[in-house]
């Protein structure tokens, strides 16, 4: 197992280097000369040439890439093309904080509701509560943001007029409710399904029968023996759902006009603002890879039955 962890930890930086190089190369391949965009339509070719030299844009791609990565390791993501003179790190910092809050709100909704409904359904197995919960998970997984966002907007913002339609005013404001709910709905379904399945699995175990047989009160059996064990797979899945939320947050941010990373990324894609695109890709990939790493490494601690083998086990 030691070798497994060592291999994973050694492979991760290599993986990140390759990913960043691919993004960098694709950025070079893409159309549009960044300096030309920067200077606008009526630019002096000589000035353009000078700026290109100054920024080192004429160097071979390998040299440009090495220089870029060197800067990134010192926390310098370069300067944005579209917002002239602004540092990418400064632009991203604020946006990241907004997106992080939005994702946290979505996660809180899907985890709290999902676990509650899942546990409830499993403990009431066979009743209509259970069937209702199962049908909900089936439908909920298919409820795409493209449907939930407009429907909830129409009901709560336009018809009832109790929630704002768009904008961002911090975590604790009415503006957060609609986007967070929209972001959380698919997660509720997944969490419910997972919690229900694992709870049913645990309830059938011998040690639960033993616990009941030795006369433990039902409350203790449920909290100490069922709940604790049932939540193991749910907790491990959090890492994945965090990564999954990121793309949903993209759409939600655009739909509700929330100034997060998603909005910035799309703006940058259209403006060919490569420093920002590079930075977002690097950060996103790093988070994603690290989340997967943590989840993989956390498995054997949460469930000692899983033993990681020395050779590389594909997920």
């Amino acid at each position, binding site marked *: 197992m030691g070798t497994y962890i060592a291999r994973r930890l050694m492979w991760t930086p290599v993986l990140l280097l390759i990913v960043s190089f691919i993004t960098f190369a694709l950025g070079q*391949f893409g159309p549009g000369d960044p300096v030309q965009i920067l200077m606008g339509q009526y630019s002096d070719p000589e000035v353009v040439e000078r700026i290109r030299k100054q920024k080192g844009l004429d160097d071979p791609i390998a040299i440009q890439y090495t220089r870029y990565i060197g800067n990134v390791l010192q926390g310098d993501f370069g300067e944005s093309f579209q917002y002239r003179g602004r540092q990418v790190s400064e632009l991203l910092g604020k946006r990241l904080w907004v997106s992080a809050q939005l994702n946290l709100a979505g996660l809180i909704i899907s985890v709290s509701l999902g676990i509650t409904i899942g546990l409830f359904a499993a403990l009431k197995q066979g009743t209509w509560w259970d069937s209702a919960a199962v049908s909900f998970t*089936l439908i909920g997984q298919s409820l795409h943001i493209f449907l939930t966002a*407009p429907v909830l907007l129409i009901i709560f913002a336009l018809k009832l007029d109790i929630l704002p339609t768009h904008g961002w005013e911090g975590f604790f404001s009415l503006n957060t409710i609609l986007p967070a709910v929209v972001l959380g709905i698919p997660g509720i379904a997944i969490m419910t399904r997972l919690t229900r399945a694992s709870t049913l699995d645990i309830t059938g175990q011998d040690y639960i029968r033993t616990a009941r047989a030795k006369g433990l009160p039902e409350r203790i059996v449920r909290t100490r023996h069922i709940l604790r064990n049932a939540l193991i797979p749910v907790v491990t899945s959090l890492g994945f759902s965090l*990564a999954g939320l990121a793309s949903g947050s993209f759409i939600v941010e655009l739909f509700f006009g929330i100034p997060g990373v998603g909005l910035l990324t799309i703006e940058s*894609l259209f403006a060919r603002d490569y420093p920002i695109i590079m930075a977002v890709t690097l950060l996103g*990939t790093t988070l994603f890879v690290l989340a997967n790493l943590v989840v993989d490494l956390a498995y054997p601690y949460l469930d000692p039955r899983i033993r990681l083998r020395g050779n590389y086990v594909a997920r």
Partner: protein
Amino acid sequence: MLQGEVLTNLDRPSRSYIQLSLRRLYRKKLSIVCLAIIVLMYGSGIFAPLVAPYGYNDQDLTKVKQGPSFSNPLGTDRLGRDMLTRVIYSLRTTVIITVISLVTGSLLLGITLGLLAGYFGRWLDGIIMRVGEVTASFPDIFLVLIIVATVKPRILTWVHTFEDSTGIDWIVRLGIVDYLVISLALAAFSWFGMARLVRGQVLQVRENQYVEASRAIGSSTLRILAIHVLPNVISPVIVSISAGLAGIATAEIVLSWLGIGIQPPTPSLGVMIFENGNLSVLRSDPHLTLVPSGVLVVLLFTFNLLGDGINDAFNPRAR
């Protein structure tokens, strides 16, 4: 009596695992209903020019943003174009993208590379799995987003030069470039899941004695792979197809919604949702947004249900 029964059973041709699974699937009413809906949607997409009541770009400015009526069952959009027609042509886009992506990415690349990685192991396995992990470590459709944003304009320029020099003018107009770039970008993103699945199965299958026996009597590697290994790894592939199609369809719609997928006037559900997704439309004519969104959700829902049904039918013990 007993002997007669045994004999008739022997006379009957034995059923393969796939046939048995399909029978089990056939008995599930819900899955068959889902399958029928999917066939209906894909069929109307394939035969769009025959099924659709109007042309997808036919504008009628005398009836703009109308609700459902007899002549326009799903209403009309801001240019007086028939919504039903546009949905049907959007489904054609979905059909083209999902089929090309699935066949090239998951089926051709995924299965082949999975077979190779699992069967030969060693360095080939290492290379294929590492390359796959690189593509899989881009969060969600980010890789596709970047590929489409950077590569498509380049290819578009090439095709334009090609059109100018040959006098052909329909390649860009019909949106073929969009279709190809997006399908292939999605394929590059989606092959790894399938390859990993197949590889895992092959690792088990190749240890079986029938593989060893076949090798012992001198079968070529290709024959072993095609006749003994492939048929035994195919069922998880079938099970994963439904979810794969749903994923690709959603990805295309999200890309088109962002404005870097299918370009108007070629219809796509994503383009339709984007065009009608603003607040003023939601306030005055919500059906313009809800129709394409609803079609997307029905598509996802039937794919998910069908996927569950197929899973139950092919893995009857794993319930």
